[in-house]
């Protein structure tokens, strides 16, 4: 057991219906004046940027100086440096990011550059120490559910020129606040929304199974698993999610993000990051395919923890009735059954080959996964052969 641990949730979270109306107040509270809005074209098309502009205009202390909507799927170093130029050219002093993981990661790296007064993002690569020289008010309006990028202090960015990905990690990158308004996820198709929910479940389970001792993040993980389990059980019965469940799902998103930010992910995340670096597959869909295999493969090393996880997902009576030795297996089965049901219901890909992942690339993916920083705190050291075994099963 580690004798030292740390837990931080440095992001103020504002949730609930119409929480978007708090945007201007929060920006003022954190000292914003001249704002750069970072987003992507889809979000613009959906009219969310107009909503933000309207809300910001209600406060005379705030002004949107520029809007950057060129963030592609999977953010890149060039994109961030382009946004940095726009930020500087328009004398901005604060950022609002409206979007999903790519948009938020772009804005996080932009904040890192501005706050550390660094003109080249490549100078800030890697996990390490960067001293803050400037406060940049930074708010996020999340339009997806699942990733946790609105809470954590990391960003994985594509370096197109060198055909690689760089990891950035610093507390300085974290947003000051995050708004989780159900109106902003309404446009998500039901399958994407549920995949987001599945990603949350996976994030929480991986955060819990990570052996880095951290009782606070463990309890955030357990509690979000408990709520998610209720939401999923409801969905199985009714076939739909009402607005209250959407809000709960968004709250789980924040809690699971907090857990993952402190505990890091695990095997499924390492493999998914590597697969997404080598293909155009969706992160949460890959995760949904990889996770059940990883969980089943690691059952023996995680038997006790999986039994605890079951305790948070079934009523006491049901828990007591299940044979002690079968509880871990029951949890794995319960989780995987739901994931499979969602994939089947919406006709989503079950295998990596159906997502455009080439068999020839599996070796390279396995190598990348072995070197992923999320495995730094893993209980077990994974060899390339371990990764290949799982990749073959998923392919």
């Amino acid at each position, binding site marked *: 057991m580690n004798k*030292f641990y740390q837990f931080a949730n440095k992001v103020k979270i504002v949730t609930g219906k119409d929480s978007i109306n708090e945007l201007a107040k929060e920006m003022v*509270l954190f*000292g914003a004046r001249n704002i750069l809005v970072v987003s992507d074209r889809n979000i613009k098309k959906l009219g969310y940027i107009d909503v933000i502009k309207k809300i910001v205009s209600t406060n005379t202390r705030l002004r949107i100086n520029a809007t950057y909507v060129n963030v592609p799927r999977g953010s890149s170093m060039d994109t961030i440096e382009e946004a940095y130029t726009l930020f500087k050219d328009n004398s901005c002093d604060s950022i609002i990011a409206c979007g999903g993981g790519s948009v938020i990661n772009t804005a996080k790296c932009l904040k890192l550059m501005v706050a550390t007064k660094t003109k080249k993002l490549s100078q800030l690569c890697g996990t390490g120490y960067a001293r803050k020289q400037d406060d940049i008010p930074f708010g996020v309006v999340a339009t997806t559910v699942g990733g946790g990028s609105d809470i954590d202090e990391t960003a994985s960015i594509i370096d197109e020129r060198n055909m690689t990905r760089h990891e950035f990690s610093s507390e300085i990158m974290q947003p000051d606040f995050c708004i989780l308004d159900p109106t902003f996820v309404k446009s998500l198709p039901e399958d994407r929304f549920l995949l987001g929910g599945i990603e949350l479940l996976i994030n929480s389970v991986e955060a819990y199974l990570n052996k880095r001792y951290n*009782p606070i993040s463990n309890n955030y993980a*357990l*509690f979000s698993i408990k709520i998610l389990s209720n939401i999923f059980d409801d969905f199985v019965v009714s076939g739909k999610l009402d607005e209250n469940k959407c809000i709960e799902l968004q*709250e789980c998103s924040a809690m699971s993000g907090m857990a993952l930010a402190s505990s890091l992910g695990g095997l499924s995340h390492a493999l998914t990051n590597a697969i997404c670096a080598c293909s155009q597959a969706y992160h949460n869909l890959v995760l949904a395919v990889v996770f059940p295999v990883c969980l089943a493969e690691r059952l023996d090393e995680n038997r006790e923890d999986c039994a605890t996880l079951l305790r948070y997902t079934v009523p006491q009576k049901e828990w007591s009735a299940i044979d002690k030795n079968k509880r871990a297996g029951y949890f794995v089965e319960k989780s995987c059954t739901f994931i499979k049901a969602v994939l089947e219901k919406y006709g989503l890909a079950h295998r990596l080959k159906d997502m455009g992942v080439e068999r020839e690339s599996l070796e390279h993916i396995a190598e990348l996964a072995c070197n992923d920083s999320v495995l730094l705190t893993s209980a077990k050291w994974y060899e390339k052969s371990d990764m290949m075994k799982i990749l073959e099963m998923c392919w």
Partner: protein
Amino acid sequence: MVKVSDNNIKFLIGEKSLENLAYEIRLAGCDKPMLVCDDMARRLGYKSILLKSFDGTDTDINYIDHTIGDIATTNDCERIVKEFIKSASDCLILLGKKAVMSAGKISKIMLCEGELSVAEYEGKDLSVSEVKKIPMFVVPTNYASGIECSNKVRIYSPDFKTIYQFDSTYAQSDVVVCDSRMTDITPPKAVASYGLYALAMAVDGYVKSGDSLYTKPYALTAIEILKEHLIKGILKVADKEHRREIMSAVVIAGCGYYQLEKNFLAVLSDVISDRYKVNQANVMAILFRHYIRHASADDREVLSQLRVCFDEDEGEDDAQVVLDRIEKIYCEIDEAVNYNSCLGDFNISKSDFASIAEETIAAADVKSEELSYSFIINLLEESY
């Protein structure tokens, strides 16, 4: 309904966690910290340990104030603010018990708002002002107080003979460090009182948090820690690990509890502790034991969710299992150590019960069915 989770505190917990403090100060962009501590921290050597943790770093303590007494006053705050400005410090380190935390937090509010006297902030809505950054690093000693992570703070004014109360984002600390070495000299009776206080905050906080999901994991964490370490921390006096875990449970439970609106139990405890100048944590721990037995049907429903914290397979009624386990913890502590376990241990007269009940009803902001005269009298009788 819009819900806000605004408790952006970083916890550093464990052995030698103080060694990370200099790094955190630099990370916040500061290099001239002012240390505020109580005389106890100086005498027990906690101050020296803290100063030593800066050896080999490029940050030195800019100014030290170690004159805070057992009860912090507005005069302390005004002195801290003056010295902070005079010494051109850029952040605060608070080392000590509740009085240091209170004085430091109020000082931070004053520094953020301008150099005014404490009285001028009373009743002012500080939540709408722009957040100014004066980073505050908190190092609790002995058994912590639960208010390390809270936005709420109370301070006594000797000039006006009154207690000012504040609830402000400015009062929030940035980093809380729970280091085993800061629990060196903690008597078992204090460990018992504060451990039970943490249990009260955690369970009551969980039950009363309603649909505020973000605070519940703090409660679950504290219960989990206490279940494992509370009795051991009392029985094994030499084992610092258990005491440090209990200290962290007090901080973590307080973090969840003080994010909620001040509820009945906290109001009643404050009324009694202010009136008789007795330890509020001790009073709350005593009251909670009896109060929780009167949980309403709705509260019992929530209470039943806590069964997952206790490894108990037997028992049909989940809420009753939880209540029995809580009572068992109290009984084990009663047997293990002689501590103030009932209100009768303080100089409280039964004839004051009526006025305590009236004062509690008048002081509570939120109306609830618990705020009935007969309920309070009954609870006081049971706790006596």
